[in-house]
């Protein structure tokens, strides 16, 4: 699913920051991988590159066989619609849209008919255990419920790759555990490839494989 070869990412600004410094990594289809490392180790940058939100300064990055670095911004967006979905630590739900509308959003962006979008959104919300909260605004939901909406939004397109950035970072232990179990069950039921950035060893332990980064380099790659 993901092939990275000698990927470097350098942020040029007032100070030059090397975020990733020659990362080579291969993640197979249907794997659930945790990426760990201290702050500034390059975890989020790695996730952004995998989803085509950013492009490497050098090296090769193939996602589902596609070289994202060679694609235009527009092409990467279109690629994301069908291949990649995201779950963020801060949920990034649209605050004025109901849970159902938030989940429908990527389908509307892809130009799917409204009825189909509504049907798939409700089905996916039921899948994450929120069929009773579809009309609620994010403000009216708990942190765990918000993250479930965000996961439903990630699943609704049926993208084979799910990238999660600290998905339990804003939740208490019990809710965090629920989210982890949900991700795991999705992975098992759908065979979705999941790459999860986390600080939490417990969260990492839920994954089949852990990749550790330090100073922009892979320092450990272990399978549990």
């Amino acid at each position, binding site marked *: 699913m993901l092939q990275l070869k000698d990927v470097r990412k350098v942020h040029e600004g007032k100070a030059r920051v090397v975020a990733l410094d020659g990362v080579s990594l291969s993640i197979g289809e249907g794997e659930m991988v945790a990426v760990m490392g201290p702050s500034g180790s390059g975890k989020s940058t790695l996730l952004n590159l995998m989803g085509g939100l950013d492009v490497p300064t050098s090296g090769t990055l193939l996602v589902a066989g596609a070289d994202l670095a060679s694609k235009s911004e527009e092409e990467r967006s279109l690629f994301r619609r069908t291949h990649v979905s995201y779950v963020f630590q801060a949920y990034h739900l649209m605050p*004025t849209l109901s849970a159902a509308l938030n989940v429908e959003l990527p389908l509307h962006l892809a130009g799917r008919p409204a009825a189909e979008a509504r049907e798939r959104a409700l089905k996916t919300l039921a899948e994450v255990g929120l069929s009773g909260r579809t009309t609620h605004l994010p403000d009216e939901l708990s942190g765990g419920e918000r993250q479930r909406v965000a996961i439903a939004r990630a699943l609704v397109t049926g993208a084979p790759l799910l990238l999660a950035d600290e998905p339990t970072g804003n939740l208490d232990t019990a809710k965090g555990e629920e989210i982890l179990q949900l991700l795991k069950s999705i992975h098992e039921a759908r065979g979705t490839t999941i790459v999860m950035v986390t600080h939490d060893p417990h969260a990492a332990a839920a994954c089949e494989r852990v990749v550790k980064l330090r100073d922009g380099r892979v320092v450990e790659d272990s399978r549990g």
Partner: protein
Amino acid sequence: MKFLLQTLSLSYVRRHRAKTFLTLLGVVVGVATYVAVVGARGSLLGGIRETVDRMAGKAQLQLTQEGGVPEELQEAIRERPGIRAQAPVIEQVVVPERDELGSLLVLGVDLLGDREMRDYGFEGEDADLDDPLLFLAQADSVAVARPLAERAGLKVGDVLVLKLPAGPRSVTIRGLLTPKGFAEAFGGNLVVMDVYAAQELFGRGRRFDRLEVRLEEGVTLDAATATLRAVVPPNVKVETPDRRSGQMEKLVANFAAGFDVTSGFALGLGAFLIYNAFSVAVNRRRRDIGTLRALGATPRQVQALFLLEALALGLAGSILGVLAGVGLTRAALDVMRQGAEQVYGVTASSEARLTFPLVLQGLALGLLASLAGALAPSRAAAAVSPTEAFAKGVHQAGGVWSWRRVASGAALLAVTVAFGVRPPVSGMAMILSIVALGAFSALLVVGPVSHRLLAFGAPLVARLFPVAGRLASDALLSSPRRSAGTVTAMTLALTFAVGIGGYIEATTATLVRWMRDILTSDIYVRASANFARPDYRFAPEVKDDLLAVPGVRSVESYRAPRLEYRGETIVLASIEMEAMLDRTRHDWVEGSEEIARREVGRGGSCTVSDNFARKFDLGVGDVVELPGARGTVRLPIAAVVKDYTSDRGTVFVDRRTFLAAFEDDRVDVFDVNLAAGADAGKVRDAIRTKLQGRMPALVSTKREFVADVEKAIDAFYALMQVTLVLALAVGVLGIVTSLLISVVERTREIGLLKALGALGGQIRSSVALEALALSAAAFLLSLPLGTLLALFVEKTVAVAFAGWSLPHETPWLLLGQLLVALPFLSAVSAWVPARQAARTPVTEALEYE
């Protein structure tokens, strides 16, 4: 996209109602100003043409002469080959005692012969009109258009009182006209009476305003014109109604075109408000944009979303603007019509009409302005990188200082100034292009410079107001783009105010100074309140009556007909030259007072105004040729003098030269000079008593006369001043929008400050100080830019349109007014945002994201 608009965009609007409303208001004001001004201009010019056309009826040629066509001319053209009929006409705009009816156009016609020219369509219980002799037997008989009668609640037999210079006069309605054809002229406010009764009523003597001529079938206009030309004196114009209305339109066209710049400016400011609001919205919605991008939205989709939002806002604003414009058109037309009548003596229907193309134009321009304003922000939105959008902390837009931007703005400004001083081509298009280039270069320069200015002033504000000042400085400097955008909008509005307001002040000061030098007689006796088109002219013998009044030392007779010269309507001013030079002071451009005395006073030459000389490229030694009573009159130019009598140019001759060449001894104004020690008020009253009941006469002392002229000048600039205020209002809207955004953006910060002990009053003061700093920066930046604009209008635009180069004056009065008004406006602008900030609950604010 529909889904995004219905959900994300609408919810953003709902969350920022006040800001959206203000942005909308910017478009509304811009479109309304445009529609009102252009609509009024169109109605004015259309009204002139329509009034002339409708009144002309079946007449194919019209004979006119400055000061009226003598009755004998009828005999001269009677039974000439090709002439089927001729009819005399008198036209007079009057105000009825019942002001609410508006001005009325009284048409004096020969009811026995005029049916060859016009279909009258008399109706109702007016059987006696079938025999017009009965109508004519009573000199106070009039017929009125039916809609006017209905509106006024008048019926046959009722009396209508008209306010005339000689006092109120009653006329009796003895007929009603069907509202079609010529009866619809002047918006239907038409009164018809016998031409000889009109001569008497309006003091025309034995003259008509024009003779109308209808031709035999198959006779060409050229052939008939040649026939008539052969028998009428050279100073009688033979022209088609079309050409006559064209001349009148041309006379007021420049006056009206000046307003296009103003309305364009209001529209531009509306666009800038959209730009400012959308720039901030993009900044504010970065995280949402990032999320959309992460979910697969393409940059083009993001850009389209913002452009569609602008389109929706523009459409709503344009529709409301057009509706508001419809209401404003009437008021704008009234102001324009008064100006045209006062300054040019041109009358037109007072009916405000908005054409469908203008409504479409207003809508299209509103939409275009909105799209233009949103274009750059929408591109910025499309360029938002999702990774940066998700970065922790509030996004701070990059700085606004860029050497490249400032340098290119300064270079463009230099080019604008160069073009402004010496335009490569002439015409309105060039002037508008220079204004647009100047505005664009100001846009480039003002933003970055304003940021430096605010950064420079921030420590001072913080020192003067330790808490509120520091908070305000922080708010201004931490959002450089928002601050720069707001200052730019306000600077443009103030530049416009300082530039155009400065020009108006400079012009007025110049005219007042000139009047002080020229209007030095003690008393002025005139027959009409209208300076440009006197409705009555005095017989020369009145001079003797005036000289006989105790206290009067000398009297000069001023007569100033308007003549056509090389396609322009110029003024030929005649007076006893030497007597006038004895009491006045002139600024001679070429020649001297001595030469004027010798060659104009005694030698039959002329002096010309500097704008006449410039317009027609003439100078001392050249000859002005004008149509006289017995052929072309050749007047050698002896001197050129600075003069502001007419914006089309003025030629001055001695009264003796005028009498000999033009054979017209009537007088427009008597300039009365008193003996030493005579009381002007008492002499004025004595003259009034002497002339009362004999002729219409407005007798004023110098001070009263100058005040009347100043009132006319004010009327001329009234609409421009209204649009100036509108432009300022749009600028203030920009500040309110910016402050509202500032408060929303700083919600968390404000909560934190309150948690740390900041009081509501301190927060409110900081918002008010923010407003004050923004307008102060704008005011400082507008001073040089406004001065450049004023210089451009005074030196280049005025020369192009009127041939005048006006001396620049610093508009101290206006600057003083702005210095007082701006802090007040800032405080008003800050009122709602400040209350909103002070009321923010701490706990909610700290959780605000």
